[in-house]
């Protein structure tokens, strides 16, 4: 009788264990795991992690914005030194020559805003002219002529140099470079109007 009872107990325990095991296994099979969201380009260049802003002592800035701002500022340098580009920025150069820096800082801010927004930032938005209007001399008096395709490609190349100046190039991060270039190329149809 005692042996029978102990056998019964063992059987109950085994059945319960089997039930628990099957249930737990079946739960794993039926649960849809939450897919890991694909990081946006903005996340890949630093995202929303807050860091010290080297240009604003005591202020914090999202790492993604800081990266993009650095790339934009470096690229402005490259573009300013590119004779193919200079013809599109006479107003900016004239302002600088006359001692006004407002246009330069506004260009840096607008371009950075645009890049943040286009790469997927949820913090920053772009409130400037749309790409078509911004590059149409009839709608934007700061641009003297329509842009042609080869100059647009030269511009993208200059952004590539700006990226390289910030330590990102095709050798060490081809995926990021390609994705940023692809992003810029999505604006080509609106920017090239000649």
């Amino acid at each position, binding site marked *: 009788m005692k042996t029978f009872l102990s056998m019964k107990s063992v059987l109950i325990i085994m059945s319960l264990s089997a039930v628990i095991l099957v249930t737990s296994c079946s739960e794993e099979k039926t649960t849809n795991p939450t897919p890991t969201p694909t990081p946006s380009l903005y996340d890949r260049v630093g995202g929303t992690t807050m860091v010290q*802003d080297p*240009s*604003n002592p005591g202020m914090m800035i999202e790492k993604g914005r800081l990266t993009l*701002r650095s790339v934009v*500022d*470096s690229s*402005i*340098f*490259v573009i*300013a*030194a*590119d*004779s193919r580009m*200079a013809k599109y920025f*006479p*107003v900016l*150069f*004239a*302002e*600088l*020559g*006359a*001692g*006004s*820096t*407002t246009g*330069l*800082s*506004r260009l*840096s*801010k607008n371009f950075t805003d645009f890049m943040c927004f286009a790469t997927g930032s949820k913090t920053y938005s772009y409130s400037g002219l749309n790409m078509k209007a911004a590059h149409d001399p009839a709608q934007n*008096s*700061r641009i*003297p002529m329509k842009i042609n395709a080869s100059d647009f490609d030269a511009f993208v190349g200059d952004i590539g140099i700006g990226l390289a*100046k910030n330590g990102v190039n095709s050798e060490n991060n081809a995926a990021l470079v390609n994705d940023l270039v692809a992003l810029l190329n999505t604006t080509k149809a609106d920017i090239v109007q000649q």
Partner: protein
Amino acid sequence: MSKVQQEPIKRKYLTVKRLLFIGSSFFLILITIMAVHIYQVTTPKSDGFVNSNLQLARIDFSGELSVKEQQSIESYVKSLPGIKSTFMNTSANVLVYTYILESVQILKNKKSNNESVSEAIVRKINESGIYNNTIRAERYMVNNTTAGSCPINGKQLSLYRKIGAMMHNILD
């Protein structure tokens, strides 16, 4: 002349005097408003912008520079007090540099402005002896006719610019 005849003349004189006073006061107020406006327009605005007082200038070289000369020129300009950063376009022999006007100490005994700083840097490069005499550094300037219609953008010697510069000299 009788006292009765003198009275209207005196009154007329007082009216003219009053009108002149009101007119000149009004004119003075207008001039002040305009001067303040020009000062505000020609002052770099911060508005949350980063590096809002950062100046950018470009120097073009008239001949081919060797890689060593390009590096020497860039290092030389970078070493000048007040220069923030530089970039040399090696294929086009073009140098771009940035600076903050207030921190540039390139001119002695002279209040700096953008034009004088740029000219001084170009002169220093040409006198540095880094390259031979056949090559000249030139400050890049845009043609005024393509520079747009905004009064602060275009002609460097416009009345607007002169008043702005004068106001900055007085108030800064």
